[in-house]
């Protein structure tokens, strides 16, 4: 026990002596939550042109009220089309001025399918909300009452992703740094040092990374406008559990990969893939079946599910999520213990 406490004390002391590292990892987390979150949520104030000189439609009002579009009205169609080709506007609604024709043509550049999709989604959103005013035979309703926005929905997935990123980074510094500096030998040459190191460092990395995530979420929530939910205890618990899982998995990976360069490269590439595969960005329901199976093979899926549950109140199988996270943690620890025991001098 004294050895575990000694290593924890030493690691915390080192962590506090690296304030730049703490600041940069917090900034990284804030950056991901705000920038990635905003990007995934979709743009606001998209520059949108409207040609309706006779004001036959009420599109200007409805599109403007949605805050998704910043409407520029044109008196001349050719000028509007020129601005579209010059990218001064992203799309153009050409309302037919023939009173016998009930037609609105949405014109886009055509060379950016992502923009086209954003425009379509935005317009559909406006139309389904304004169906009564516009007298449209198209409605959008939900089966369950929804109390959160798209921004709120994205954040728990990002939090799960950040658990992976922060745990991996902290682990890299905690373990691989010691290997590189050879100070690791001091610990394993002490009686029962290896066992104490595994326990102590797993604990410190879990706690350090969790503090960074909580701090980032608390600082960003009021600015970016997302909710942390009412279940703060659950949020804290699953943060710790997810961090613990990724710390153990990361330790196993570090023992396999050994050098900081290969470790960070592998962790980064894998992180990007997992981010898109695990329901962090796109719900797994919207993915092909094979991808859904792949998502459920990795722990990020379960931590994203748990985070959505505690932050949004959506149904989540907490016991199942926790079990899978613990299983992955055990797998990582077992791998690390075997490899560390075998390769003491070469690390």
């Amino acid at each position: 026990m004294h050895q575990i406490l000694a290593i924890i004390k030493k690691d915390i002391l080192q962590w506090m002596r690296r304030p730049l590292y703490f600041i940069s990892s917090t900034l990284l987390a804030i950056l991901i939550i705000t920038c990635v979150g905003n990007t995934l949520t979709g743009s606001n104030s998209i520059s949108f042109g409207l040609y309706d000189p006779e004001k036959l439609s009420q599109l200007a009002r409805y599109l403007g009220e949605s805050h998704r579009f910043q409407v520029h009205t044109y008196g001349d169609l050719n000028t509007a089309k020129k601005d579209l080709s010059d990218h001064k506007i992203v799309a153009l609604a050409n309302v037919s001025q023939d009173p016998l024709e009930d037609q609105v043509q949405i014109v886009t550049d055509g060379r950016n399918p992502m923009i086209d999709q954003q425009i379509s989604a935005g317009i559909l959103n406006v139309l389904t909300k304004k169906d009564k005013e516009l007298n449209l035979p198209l409605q959008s309703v939900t089966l369950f009452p929804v109390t959160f926005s798209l921004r709120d929905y994205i954040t728990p997935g990002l939090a799960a992703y950040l658990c992976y990123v922060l745990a991996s980074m902290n682990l890299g510094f905690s373990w691989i740094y010691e290997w590189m500096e050879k100070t690791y030998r001091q610990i394993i040459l002490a009686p029962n040092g290896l066992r104490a190191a595994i326990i102590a460092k797993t604990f410190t990395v879990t706690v350090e990374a969790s503090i960074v995530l909580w701090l980032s979420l608390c600082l960003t929530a009021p600015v970016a406008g997302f909710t942390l939910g009412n279940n703060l205890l659950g949020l804290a618990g699953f943060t710790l559990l997810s961090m613990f899982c990724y710390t153990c998995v990361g330790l196993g990976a570090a023992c396999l990969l050994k050098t900081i360069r290969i470790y960070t490269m592998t962790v980064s590439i894998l992180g990007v893939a997992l981010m898109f595969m695990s329901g962090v960005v796109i719900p797994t329901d919207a993915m092909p079946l094979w991808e859904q199976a792949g998502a459920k093979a990795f722990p990020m899926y379960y931590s994203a599910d748990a985070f959505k549950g505690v932050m949004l109140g959506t149904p989540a199988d907490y016991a199942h999520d926790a079990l899978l996270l613990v299983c992955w943690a055990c797998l990582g620890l077992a791998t690390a213990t075997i490899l560390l025991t075998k390769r003491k001098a070469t690390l």
Partner: protein
Amino acid sequence: MSHVNSITVAERIADNRVEPTIKALALTKLFGERLSVDQLSFQVFPGELYALLGDNGAGKTTTINMLTTLLGPTSGRFTICGYDGLRQAEKAKSMFGVVSQDVAIYQELTAYENLNFIADLYGLPRRKAAPRINLLLDTAGLADRANDKVGDFSMGMQRKLSIAVAILPEPRVLFMDEPTVGLDPASRLQIWSTLKELRGQGVTILLTTHYLEEAELLADRIGIIRQGRLVIEGTIDELRHRIESIRGVSITLKGPVDPDDLQRRVARCTAVVNARSHFDPLRNTLSFMQPKDLPLTHLLDTTLQWLKQEKIPFSRFTTSEPSLEDIFLTIVEREDDIQISPGRNGAE
């Protein structure tokens, strides 16, 4: 070398009732197909400083790593203070400290914090740890830098601190892997002084080194390892006796010398052909060892006559006891030609 200590150690070695502190039995290490350590057997007795000499890649560090449980041997076994290094590794670890070749100190922590960490790691009670830490810092000459970050220390200071770290838990055995490499002469002298003190306190020390003067000055016994095998071991006197030579001869030549031409001329000298010669181009010195069966007067006559015949100008002609360097070079260069008397080594 402490004469009194040597006698005490020699007595211990001769006394079969004294159990060795370190006992290695046929230690072997294979890295894939490469044999790094080959059936290495030796013993180190209580209070002895045993120096393991060898070229780069001879297997010294691999041997230290096996004895300190960092590396598992392919075969063989070893004991530290009676504990089996393989089956009782954790108990064996509590008996020794290690000063490795690389300075393994936490750079962001202060000197005091580094030592305090080790004290906590080894479970030293606080009331005992604090005075011991202060004593070690004082002995290492780091008392006034106790609260400075180690990252700001010179290499010599870090090396002294790493020795303090290794001896903080008062180990009975100390493994030191080239502890003075890269240090200036003053720092090296300070560390030698510390090692002598430790040896005087009864700590058993196994030291690997490149520096022959270090081994000559400090070691009670020396083992020379080559290609993973212990080729010869003993005190310096024993080593001299075992290589069948009694005297080193050194001739400092004047002017530039063509080494190939010199070798051809050396072949014509009967005194030298019976002993292997060695030309050092840096010091412009030809040296060889006089075999035991050749009287000194005959050696002097023959050699001077040869120098005169070959018209080789020289500025200095000296005879001396074969140095450790002579012995080492003799062994590592041409082992086959060495007549090594069978001596007591660690093999059972």
